[in-house]
């Protein structure tokens, strides 16, 4: 026997709380699963992070005039 008696409220709400707990766990599973699915597909994982980074900049447009002088 438990040392403390469960509050009546907790007993009555058990099904509701257990259900919500399972829903939240499922949600965590979904977000994790989506992460795996997107990584597998090779989606772009980097986004703007308040600092310019070359890896997320669009490719510079080719400038034919400059290309000529560089060689």
């Amino acid at each position, binding site marked *: 026997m438990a040392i403390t008696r469960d509050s*009546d*409220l907790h007993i009555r709400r058990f*099904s*509701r709380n257990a259900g*919500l707990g399972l829903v939240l766990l499922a949600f965590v599973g*979904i977000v994790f*699963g*989506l992460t*795996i699915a997107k990584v*597998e597909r090779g989606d772009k994982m980097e986004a703007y992070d308040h600092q310019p980074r070359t890896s997320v900049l669009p490719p510079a447009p080719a400038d034919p005039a400059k290309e000529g002088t560089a060689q």
Partner: protein
Amino acid sequence: MTDISYVQHDKEARFGDYIALLKPRVMSLVVFTAFVGLVVAPDPVHPFVGFVAILFIALGGGASGALNMWYDADIDRIMRRTQSRPIPEGRISEREALAFGLVLSGISCVMLALATNIFSGLFLAFTIFFYVVIYTMWLKRATPQNIVIGGAAGAFPPMIGWAVSTGGISVESVAMFLLVFLWTPPHFWSLALFMKADYDEAKVPMLTSTHGRRVTRKNVLVYTLVLAPLAVATGFTSIGGPLYLATAIVMNALFIKGAIAIYSRTEVQAEADKYAVEKRFFYFSLIYLFAHFAALLAEAGLSHIGLGVW
């Protein structure tokens, strides 16, 4: 220590009451048609992403169901069919249903947009808006054509499924929309003919009481006649094929035959055999819609294994 339990215990909401707010039976149609819309679309979707997309489309549909029950609580208290819903029974308060519906709407749209594409998320948001604001709040109590408007809301899920895959709208997705949209009026009004529901007491205009049963019978026939050529024509789009075409021709011939039978009956004849023709037409309408979408699914399966014809 005294216990401050002034809440009536037998009326406390259980987990199942929140599920009931999501209208699980409506959800099954949403899941099925959205799934078909997603599978028949040309661009492949990662199976898990597809599963999550269907889940959140269903949740969005459920959220609009909860918002509908929040707004229609006054009607639900009056009508016998809906008196046992969680709000009329007092297990969930109206404010709680509103909050529940709004939060789930937000979660479902944002999660769909993140999991698939922004367009799908916006489309789901529009569908919820359409069902809750345009249908429930505005037109349901204003016009006897309310069933037609409600049908549009129920017809968006296959288009969202298609948008999950393609990120847009096309002829095929509009064809699936029209199939459900035009099917809803004959489906529902045939039910209204034999279910003597108490819509009058709740002051919801139903075609059977505002314009009479004769006009309702005519409306069933007209919508069926408009639906049939469109349902068959879908067979010539990229999602169709000989199997779908054969199914559509048989199903629509039977559907038109049933609609003509309903149209040519008088109330006396219907009373005499306890609305047997109307009941048969209603149950057939369920098979009708299922067969069309199952045939589209089969065509997608055939073309996947290289047996597609067009």
